[in-house]
């Protein structure tokens, strides 16, 4: 009976021999489809919009028409942002409704080659994502607060019933659940930061869409360089 070690060594050599013998015989016919590079979509880059201030492309709508009316007209699919800041494709597909407050809705031609409109769209998407993350965080992680409450309120019972050991165990549970609550709070604060940052960026692009130039629009929106980097994450 052969020893397992010798068998392994033999198998290894055999495998190596097969591999080496096959190396010279491989015939490879490349079948590569030529790469067709399409026209690049316009990219919104920090500062490029300011260099090319455009004419206003925004048409105000009637005073009694608010963002809820716009969302109702647009339907469920092609909408971004929320009822406070957002945009949606108007019926017919030729125009977008754009708003930065519920009562301040404007109509913009559906031309996403305009970097101002594209920038607004990106910030509305980022804003919606941050808002959704926030509510999802509250809706799924609230149990951390409940756990903290149970361990905190239960400390007297643990100390009286379990003595010093019970006290220590529950004390540790209070610290752990408190840490979980802190972690949840920090995550929610991050989401709020991302939301408010996207909100400022959206205001900046809305100002540009109204024909404003870079510096006044940055000032009026309160946007910073950091906002743009957060918005692009």
């Amino acid at each position: 009976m052969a020893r397992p070690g010798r068998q392994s060594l033999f198998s290894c050599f055999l495998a190596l021999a097969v591999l080496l013998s096959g190396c010279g015989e491989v015939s490879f016919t490349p079948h590569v489809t030529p790469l067709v590079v399409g026209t690049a979509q316009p990219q919104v880059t920090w500062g490029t919009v300011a260099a090319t201030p455009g004419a206003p492309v925004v048409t105000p709508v009637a005073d009694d028409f608010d963002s809820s009316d716009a969302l109702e007209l647009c339907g469920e699919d092609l909408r971004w942002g929320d009822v406070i800041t957002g945009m949606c494709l108007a019926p017919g597909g030729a125009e977008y409704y754009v708003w930065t407050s519920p009562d301040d809705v404007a109509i913009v031609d559906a031309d996403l080659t305009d970097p101002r409109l594209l920038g607004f769209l990106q910030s509305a998407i980022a804003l919606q994502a941050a808002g959704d993350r926030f509510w999802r965080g509250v809706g799924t992680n609230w149990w951390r607060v409940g756990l903290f409450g149970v361990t905190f309120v239960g400390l007297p019972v643990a100390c009286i019933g379990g003595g010093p050991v019970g006290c220590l165990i529950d004390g540790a549970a209070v610290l752990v659940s408190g840490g979980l609550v802190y972690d949840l709070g920090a995550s929610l604060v991050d989401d709020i930061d991302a939301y408010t940052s996207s909100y400022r960026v959206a205001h900046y692009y809305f100002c540009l869409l109204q024909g404003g130039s870079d510096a006044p629009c940055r000032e009026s929106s309160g946007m910073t360089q950091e906002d743009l980097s957060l918005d692009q994450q």
Partner: protein
Amino acid sequence: MTSSRTEPSVGEKKAESALRAVLLGAGLWLAPFSLVQNGAWAGVVVVLGLALVLVIASVSRFPSAAALWMARRSSERHLAFWSVWFSCGGLLTSVLVAALPAVGIAAGIPVPWAFWTVIGGGAVSALINLVVLVRNIAAKPGP
């Protein structure tokens, strides 16, 4: 006929009322979370069931039995302290629960309607615990 048990002490009454408030408050802030389970029926049933158990426990004999159990193992002074602890814990938890969605509102994020009920439940729970806390602190201390 003699009673098998003496009248509950002031500390015991304080602990009992604080426990009732904590349980009722927890049921009140927990129930609205069944509305944010995104249609996961298991989650809805568990959360609502737990909230119902807490509310029923708050009006049952459990808090008085728990207070009696504590009274037999603690001094009157300790019992009064633990009652304040219960109320503070209930208050802190309720405020935290209400604060989670409330910070979103403060930041201007539009609130889905279900979270208003969470804020309401947390606020009512905080109020109940606060009232009991104040009443227990103001109550005449036991012997």
